[in-house]
């Protein structure tokens, strides 16, 4: 154990001083604490807080940590949760845990690191990966993969060229160095994200059901161990300053508030923790993320026996001049806190020594119901930890439907000029294929390692990422994330449901059964009643849809204040769906596999272009209503896709979403290196058939020998199915309209990113 840190010259604000100096003015507003919140702290403590206590309340009661604006809406995910038997840990812990069969459980969660990634793209994105991976590790699981849904401003905007390359390098630099495959995600551009990029990170882990760990400090006398990286000055106030402040022009740079990551430290910490878990050496464990030591100590204490004594001056520091308030708020990365029985402390330290991980006993669990901290012998914190962790303010923020919503929905895309001739349709196909949101993302995903650990069955470019969990049984999981800000802006209730429907469909398209949901809700300021209405509608829509589809929300994250100069981003709920597949060898790819296979279109195509990629790319138009959602249809489609995969009837399957049918056909053709001859259904206008974004659809390829069996199944179950062509040749031909050679399609599809960022 290192010697005590040398006591810096610093006038410590003790509990005793605080009790004796009630009138002292405190800078609570600079820390983001509102006057009524400060009054509440005075009431709770019966005196003024010490400066250390004020620091802790400020971070623990921040929007980022307390969910004070969103709580009343997030409650629906519990109230309306579908009854399922596979949910082992629900929302509220570091991540939800799902029983996937056998003795295995899977934990997964998505989080945002939006603001830091705008300020410092590389470190912001890197530490976003690091933080979510530690959440997964904290549940007792081995992290096995990550995914990154990203949103940027316009692809040709100068600032996008500062932000995107840094974000991508940061995700790769950190994730690759952790040895975690990156198996999927999204890259989407829209000028609404200029100045407010969305950098969401999802991580997934696996463990034995019996090995789930919880963030609880039980057992008086048990030791509190801080281990991993030393505490430094980076990220001080990161949570409370960065996550609660919008970017207005003219304010000073906030660069120093962004944390700096060390993936090597985290990789070592992961392996060290997993050996510690395997020997059952911890009673409880918590990672240090937002609000650092403040959060870890209060959450462990509040969820356990109820008390904890901490000698804060024992915390190993990278910068010896840090004062207690800074140590409590520091968001230095790669740190963990464990509760260990005295008998197991020495073995715990042996394993830390094996991995060269610094570990220090800094406290003891008590049954006093108080979290007490001392600094060189003087008491600087003495609070009921529950008041920090659970009794923060809860706001019923006012909300109302924006006045412009009706006008937006009335601005339907019907009058936009549509391509009519074969030649015009051909041109539109190529233009759409090369547009940044639909273009090939090879430039990005080549910077991520999707192979490491050797269990990646499907990754980028497929409908969902898929991992083998068990080489004996071939049990696997699939994961997809989706979200469409334009749809959600047009109708937040429907937009959130469409995000879920698409991720759900993507998982099913690869042959996996969708089980559970994690969500990252990216919105503007909750203090804006119009944004709050979007949030209320989106959460209501998502909760209602989860109930119908039987997929509970297991955890997630809310990111507010994504706005600049009072202009919020499109409301962007990103939904991650986890599915399970009994035998990963049965997976369905989206690539056309064999010439002569029959192409079938599943579902109904309507004239739906509100919020579509076509209206966006060709006309820069956003108006009308998003596509209709039919959740029962989504469920039926998923069941058919899963059955087709399980029974070996499908040689390819691809969900239809952004860009419509033709985008899906071209992607399947390019990936398989095989063309297609498409005959559009007669009753449909060719443009609508090719580009509509109606939900609840997929295109599948089936061997001729399976066609009847498959279409009979669809008809029997009531799923519309239409034969639309055959896999054939080296061009994509739409009969009577146009034909485009695969080479030409490939050039259009793959040229965009290298030209923009290469």
């Amino acid at each position, binding site marked *: 154990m290192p010697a005590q840190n040398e006591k810096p010259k610093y006038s410590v604000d003790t509990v005793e001083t605080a009790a004796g100096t009630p009138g002292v003015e405190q800078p609570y507003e600079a820390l983001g604490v509102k006057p009524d919140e400060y009054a509440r702290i005075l009431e709770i403590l019966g005196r003024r807080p010490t400066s250390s206590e004020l620091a802790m309340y400020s971070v623990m009661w921040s929007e980022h940590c307390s969910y004070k604006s969103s709580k009343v809406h997030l409650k629906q995910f519990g109230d309306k949760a579908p009854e399922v038997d596979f949910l082992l840990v629900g929302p509220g812990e570091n991540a939800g845990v799902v029983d996937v069969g056998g003795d295995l459980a899977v934990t997964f969660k998505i989080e945002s690191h939006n603001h830091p990634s705008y300020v410092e793209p590389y470190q912001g994105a890197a530490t976003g990966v690091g933080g979510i991976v530690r959440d997964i590790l904290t549940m007792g699981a081995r992290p096995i993969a990550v995914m990154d849904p990203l949103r940027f401003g316009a692809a040709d905007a100068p600032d996008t060229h500062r932000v995107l390359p840094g974000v991508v390098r940061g995700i790769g630099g950190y994730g690759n160095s952790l040895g975690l495959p990156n198996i999927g995600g999204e890259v989407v551009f829209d000028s609404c994200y200029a100045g407010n990029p969305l950098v969401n990170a999802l991580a997934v882990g696996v463990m034995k059901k019996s090995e789930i760990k919880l963030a609880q400090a039980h057992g008086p006398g048990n030791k509190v161990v801080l281990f991993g990286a030393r505490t430094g000055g980076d990220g001080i106030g990161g949570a409370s300053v960065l996550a609660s402040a919008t970017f207005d022009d003219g304010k000073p740079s906030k660069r120093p508030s962004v944390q700096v990551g060390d993936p090597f430290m985290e990789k070592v910490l992961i392996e060290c923790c997993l050996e510690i878990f395997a020997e059952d050496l911890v009673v409880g464990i918590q990672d240090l993320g937002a609000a650092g030591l403040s959060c870890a100590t209060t959450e462990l204490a509040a969820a356990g026996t109820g008390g904890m004594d901490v000698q804060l001056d024992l915390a190993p520091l990278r910068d010896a001049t840090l004062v207690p308030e800074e140590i409590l708020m520091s968001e230095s990365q790669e740190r963990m806190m464990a509760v260990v029985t005295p008998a197991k402390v020495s073995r715990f330290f042996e394993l830390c020594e094996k991995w060269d991980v610094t570990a220090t006993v800094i406290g003891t669990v008590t049954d006093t119901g108080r979290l007490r901290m001392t600094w060189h012998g003087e008491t600087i914190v003495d609070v009921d930890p529950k008041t920090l962790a659970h009794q923060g303010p809860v706001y019923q923020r006012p909300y109302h439907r924006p006045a412009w919503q009706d006008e937006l929905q009335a601005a339907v895309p019907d009058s936009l000029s549509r391509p009519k001739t074969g030649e015009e349709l051909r041109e539109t196909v190529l233009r759409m294929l090369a547009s940044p949101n639909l273009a090939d993302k090879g430039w990005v*995903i080549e910077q991520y390692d999707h192979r490491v650990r050797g*269990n990646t069955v499907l990754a980028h470019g497929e409908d969902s990422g898929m991992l083998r969990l068990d080489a004996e049984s071939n049990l696997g999981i699939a994961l997809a994330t989706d979200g469409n800000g334009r749809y959600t802006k047009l109708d937040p209730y429907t937009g959130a449901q469409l995000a879920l429907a698409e991720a759900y469909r993507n998982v099913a398209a690869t042959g996996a059964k969708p089980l559970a949901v994690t969500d990252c809700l990216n919105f503007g300021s909750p203090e804006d009643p119009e944004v709050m209405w979007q949030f209320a509608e989106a959460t209501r829509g998502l909760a209602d849809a989860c109930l119908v589809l039987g997929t509970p929300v297991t955890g997630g994250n809310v990111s507010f204040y994504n706005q600049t100069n009072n202009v919020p981003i499109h409301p962007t709920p990103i939904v991650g769906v986890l599915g399970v597949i009994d035998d990963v060898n049965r997976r369905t790819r989206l690539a056309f596999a064999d010439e002569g296979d029959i192409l079938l279109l599943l579902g109904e195509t309507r004239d739906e272009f509100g919020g579509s990629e076509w209206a966006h790319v060709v006309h820069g138009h956003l108006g009308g209503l998003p596509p209709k959602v039919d959740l029962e249809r989504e469920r039926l489609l998923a069941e058919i896709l899963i059955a087709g995969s399980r029974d070996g009837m499908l040689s390819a399957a691809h969900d239809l979403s952004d860009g419509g049918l033709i985008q899906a056909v071209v992607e399947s053709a390019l990936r398989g290196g095989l063309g297609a001859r498409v005959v559009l259904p007669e009753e449909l206008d060719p443009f609508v058939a090719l580009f509509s974004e109606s939900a609840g659809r997929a295109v599948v390829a089936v061997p001729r020998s399976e066609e009847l069996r498959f279409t009979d199944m669809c008809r029997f179950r009531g799923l519309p199915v239409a034969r639309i062509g055959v896999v054939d040749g080296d061009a994509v031909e739409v009969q009577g309209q146009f034909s485009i050679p695969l080479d030409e399609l490939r050039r259009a599809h793959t040229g965009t990113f290298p030209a923009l960022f290469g």
Partner: protein
Amino acid sequence: MSLRIGVITFPGTQDDQDALRAVALVGAEPVALWHRDPDLHQVDAVVLPGGFSYGDYLRAGAIARFSPVMESVIAGAREGLPVLGICNGFQVLCESHLLPGALIRNGGLLFVNRDEKLRVESATTQWTGDYTAGQEIVIPIKNGEGRYTADPRTLDELEAEGRIVVRYLDNPNGSARDIAGIANPAGNVVGLMPHPEHAVEELTGPYPGPATDGLPFFTSILKQLVAA
């Protein structure tokens, strides 16, 4: 008794599980070796897997070469112990002077992960006997510092002595003379940037394939050891 092939784990190693799996797939006994332990536990061959040993913070592979296990590997290799260095392992072998030259930052500066077409130039090393010279294979690369470099005399020597083991068909990073992998004069030590351990199963190998072109690296050494 089955043959034992050791796979070293340094702090920061990533692909050790993949290398252990590849060893098991060809029927050898995989043995996990730890960087601090100089004992090689009677293994018949050693794989230095990919990753970022010690964070690669000084220079890729620069610290790993001073680890206790590497002292034994270096001594063993000089006496004929077969050693395969993959990616970071190749970098460690160069830093250890078991192989000449160095790996520097890629020409494009970025980390690159893709399936790469290679040509096997030498089927006479202990790790490539199951290939035929001139055979074209597909094996993934994934690195940020994979650009092989050496002085012209060394490169000429490697060519003349047939010690260039694999070449890129479409050089992804500016490697000198398209070099993807080389051997020592005895042919027991081979280093390469591509990852054969990621091309050993139909389910997880390169897509659209061929998916298992990496297997012969592991079957070759097995045959070699059985014959010895």
